[in-house]
Structure formats: C-alpha cells, structure tokens
C-alpha cells in the first residue's frame, strides 16, 4: 500500500511538470500533503502515538491546508497571472522529469542496503531534483516557492524512511518545514508582493557589482 501511495506521489510530479496554471500547482501540493498523511500512518508504525499524531497533524494541517490556502490567497491578493510561464515547453519538461526519475532509479540500483526501502530513496531523490528543476525553469517567484515546497516534501519522504529508528529526525524535518515556510512565505512573499507589483524574477536583478 505504501508503494502505491509513493508511486502516486511520483505521478503528481509528472502532472506538475505539464500543468499550466498556478492553481493546479497549489492543488497538487495539497494532494501531496494528503498522500504523505497516509504514508506516515502506514510507515511509522513503531513510534509512540503522540508523536505520530503530531506528524500526521503537520502533514494534513500544514502541508495540505495552510500552505495551499496561503499560496492561493497570495495569488489573489497580488493579482498574479494564472499561467506558470515556464522557460521550456511542457513536452521538454515531461521528458526531463522522466529522465530525473529514471536516473534516480538507476542510482538506487547501484546501492546495496537492506535497511532502506529503495522506493523511498527513489521518490525522495527524484522529488528533490524535480523541485530544483521547477525552480530553475519557472519565471515567477511564487513558483520558486512552490518548487521549494516540493523539495521539502521530498525530504520528508526520505526522513520517513529512517523514521522508525530515529523519530527525532522526522521531527527535525517538520521543524525545518515550518520554520523555512513561515520565513519564506509569511515574511517575504508578503513583502515582495507589496514592493514589486508583478512578481517576476526579472525584477530581482538590481544587485550588481558596479
């Protein structure tokens, strides 16, 4: 069952690679939060109940409700156009995403480790690289933030792989999640929306050496 969920998680990445609208991105992020909620429930069977409830609350409340709602609020408030405006056509995106997944599968095959369920490794690493790819190829700052959220989801999957033995690391991951998201979203996207009217990375190139 965990495998089915994790494969669904990878499919959401493909969907994100070809999505056109920012609202779709936000919905996919929410869906990823829900998938992670079930993965946590199934995977972390050995840790104490209170901690499990905490982690599950984080995935469902923070990842799939708070962040998506706040992002869509930002979209409306700053009148950001609904297109994602990628630098590359969607077809190329799809091909590159496929490449990323295939390469991570190849990497994981070279590693011989009985302690690790390989599918966690594949999903986490491909999500990480997909997030970086998303950041590199989209024009708007808000899509950079979404790319960062994708990376965090990937890291969360990886932390679940070791979660039963070291629940502390999952908690640290949650701390990173909340800390970085609040810092990035709460303070600065708000400010950036106020100062730069149409939020595009092209406007962030005024710091120069001369």
């Amino acid at each position, binding site marked *: 069952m965990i495998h089915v969920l994790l494969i669904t998680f990878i499919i959401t990445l493909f969907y994100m690679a070809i999505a056109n609208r920012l609202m779709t991105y936000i919905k996919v992020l929410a869906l990823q939060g829900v998938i992670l909620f079930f993965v946590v429930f199934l995977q972390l069977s050995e840790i104490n109940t209170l901690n499990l409830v905490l982690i599950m609350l984080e995935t469902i409340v923070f990842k799939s409700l708070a962040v998506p709602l706040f992002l869509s609020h930002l979209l409306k408030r700053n009148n950001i156009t609904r297109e994602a405006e990628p630098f590359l056509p969607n077809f190329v995106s799809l091909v590159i995403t496929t490449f990323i997944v295939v390469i991570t599968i190849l990497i994981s095959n070279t*590693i011989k*480790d009985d*302690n*690790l369920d390989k599918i966690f490794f594949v999903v986490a690493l491909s999500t*990480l690289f997909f997030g970086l790819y998303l950041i590199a190829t989209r024009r708007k*700052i808000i899509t*950079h933030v979404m790319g*960062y959220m994708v*990376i*965090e989801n990937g*890291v969360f999957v*990886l*932390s679940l*792989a*070791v979660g039963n*033995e*070291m629940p*502390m*690391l999952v908690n*640290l*991951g949650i*701390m*990173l999640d909340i*800390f*970085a998201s609040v*810092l*990035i979203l709460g*303070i*600065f996207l708000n*400010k*950036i929306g106020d*100062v*730069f009217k149409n939020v595009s990375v092209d406007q*962030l190139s*005024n*710091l*120069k*050496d*001369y």
Partner: protein
Amino acid sequence: MIGVYLLGALAIAIILFISRNKIFVYSLAGLFLVLQSVFAIYSCFHYGSTEWIYFTYDSLGVILLITMSIVAIPALIHSYIYIENHQENAQARAIYLTSMVLLIMAISAGYLSNHIAVTWIFTEITTLSASALIYHHRNKLALEGTWKYVFICAISITFIFIGILFLSLSLQHAGSDDLSFKNLLARRTELNPVWLRMAFLFIFTGFTAKLGLVPMFTAGIDAKDKAPAPAGALLATVLMNLGFVGIFRFYIVIANTPLLHWAQLVVGTAAFLSIFVSTVYMLKVKNVKRMLAYSGIEHMGIVMLGVAAGGIGYYAAVLHIILHAFVKSSLFFQFNQLYRVFQDKSIYHIGNYFKYNATGAMVLLFGFISATAMPPSGLFVSEFLIFKSIFDAGQIALLIAVLLLLTLIIFAFGKNIFKILFIPAVGFDDSNIEKISPWESLSQFLFLAFAVYLGLNPPAIFVQMLKDSVSLLPM
C-alpha cells in the same frame, strides 16, 4: 552555564524587541556583551567539559567563541554609532539589536555543539536573524538581497538536512542512532561508505552557503552588501566561521575513514573554484562592500585548500579563519565611516580619502596590507603555511595556479584601495562633509595589531589550542 547563556540571551532579545526606551535598550545591549564575555571566559575554565549533552567546550569551539566574543564588542559599539548617525526610529533599532543578539547567540551555540543536528538547528537560527539584519533598510534592493539570501539559505539548510538523513542511514549499519561527532568518529570503521559519501556531499554543499564557497556563495555576497556594515562585519567573519565549523567537524570524521582522499578532492575542487570565481569578480567589482565580501570568498577558498592539503595545512586553516575574522571585520567597521564621508559605495565616486579622514585612511591601508597577506600581517604566516602544505602534498601545478590568481586579486584589490586613498573622485563636492572622530577607528587598529601579534608571535596557549583542535585529524 550554556543554559544560563542561552536563556539570558533569549530574554535580553525579547526585552530588546519590546522596549522602545533608548538608554535602556543600549544598556541592555551592553549587558549582553557582559554575558557574552563571561560565557567566553567561563568556557576557558571548563575546557573539555560537556553541558546539556549537546554542548562541549572543545578547543575549536572555545577558540572561535573567544574570537566571536572579541569581535562582538566593537560590532555593537559600531552599531550604536550607525544607529545614532542614521537616526533610526525606535522600532528599527529594536529589530536590529534583537537580531544582532540572536545572531551572536546562535553562532556561539553553533560553535560549541557536538551534535550535527544541533549545529544544523543553530545554523537555521542564524539565517532568520541575519535576514532581519539584511532587510534593515526596508527598500527594494534590501528586499532583493534578503529574498535571495533567505531562499538560498533555505535550500542549503534543506541540503544539510538531507545530508544528516544519509548520515543516519550510514550509521544504521553500525547499529547506532547517536549522531554526535564523537560517536561518528568512534564508529568510523562501521559506517557505510556509499551513504557517507552522499552525506558529505550534501552537508558540504549546504554549509558552503554560510562559509562562502562555490557553489552557494552568491547569497552571502548580497547579504554582506545590503546589511548595515557592523552587521555585515559579523556576517563576513564569524558567521563564515560557523560554516567552517560545520564542515570541519564532519571532515574530521570522514578524514579518518578510507574516503579521505575522495573528500580532499571534493573540498580542494570547491576551494580552488572559489578562489578562481573571487578573482574574476574582484577584477571587475566596483562596489567597495562587495569587494570586501569577494575577498572573504578568496580567503575561505585558501582555508579550505589548507584543509584539503592536510599536514600543517589543518593548523594553518584554523589560524587563518581566526586572523581573517579580525582583519575583515575591521575593514567592514571602517567602511561605515567611508560611507559617511562620501555617501556612496561605488569606487568611481570615492577618492582621496587621506584628505578627509587620515586615521580612517590608515585603517584602510593597513587593512589592505593585512587582507592581502603581505609580510607584517598575521595572515601572511597562515597563508604561507597553507602554501607549504600544498607544496608538501605535491600539488605544484595547483600551487602555481593559486599563486597566479592571488597575484591578480592583490592587483585588483590594491588598484581599488589606492584609488580610494589617493585619487580624487570626479565631481565630488567636499564643502560640507562630516568630520569623523579618530577614536572611532581605535577598535580597527587594535584588531589589525592583534592579528599581527597572533600571527607573528602567538602565545603558547593559543598554539596549543590550535594544535588540539586539529589533533583528531590524520597527519
């Protein structure tokens, strides 16, 4: 004591944030300096002991903590001058001082932590407090700098976390779940090399954002440019040292495994690329503050080359970051007075500084000699030892390339500094410029002299601590 220090600093930060009374706020900042100094002295007397499980007063931590505490004193004094000169409102002052206290606290605790996850947590806190400092001026450029810094630091902190996860996978083979550096070192033979490699790559890449090395150095440059100069002095020196601590403590573990050679290659490549990149930027940079920041990238590149070369290089690397902290911070403190005279950062609009502020010009001149590691400077000694270690490692081609790049850097640095000192700026109206008290340069002179003293005639206890801090590395 670490508990008293952390809680005390936190309490001071909270009161600073709330309070709007000028005299009260400044005396509270003074109280924090007392707390910081007491903590540093306490750490000397409890050398080697562990508190709160996660904090050990080991030699590297203590020596950097003392450096930090010394740099913090003029940093806050110059902050006072800065705030009063800009006539900041009470709120801006409160946020500034709170962030400074939190930054100093987080860096100090990060130095002393003996557990990689704890170091990571305090590195996160430095990102938060540094971003508040960078955004101090609340204009468009400051926002741009802050955004870039926050975003790149967030990604690199995530990288460190991924590295920690890989490290935990590596450790599972050893049947342990304690991620303290001591335990990692004790179980070095049982660690899984594949995961260890991945962990080192991610942790190294992550910490380069703080250390200022290729690939993540860019954010730090914007940060040091946009932050007020006294805060920039901390970002350009002691915060970089925190990145160094993060990498170095983990490097000690990996140097004791068969992966040593591979790790040397990784660190050496990043270090050489950093020197190369900083040379390229130094040759064209026209913004004084960014020039100082790029010079920091070059120095960190040299430090990491020393680490990669091994042998005497380890000792010289730790010596170099300490001396660099004093030299570079004094240049940043001096920048503020330069700005008050010319009201500009661009070298085109600055010139003939000797005429307007002779004392300050002397600081720039001596600072330039120190930062480029010319003989009376203490950095000369450490840089010479690093070159010797590269030579001993048999990397002659690398040494020649680095020396050529350094020559270019000295040329570019010197060209700009001498333009500032002697050649008048075109169209500069000097009818009503501010007179600056020579006393404001006192701390800079003391720091530069101290760096010379530490480099040329180091006290025996200092040498002993440096040796202790690298004693776990294979010679």
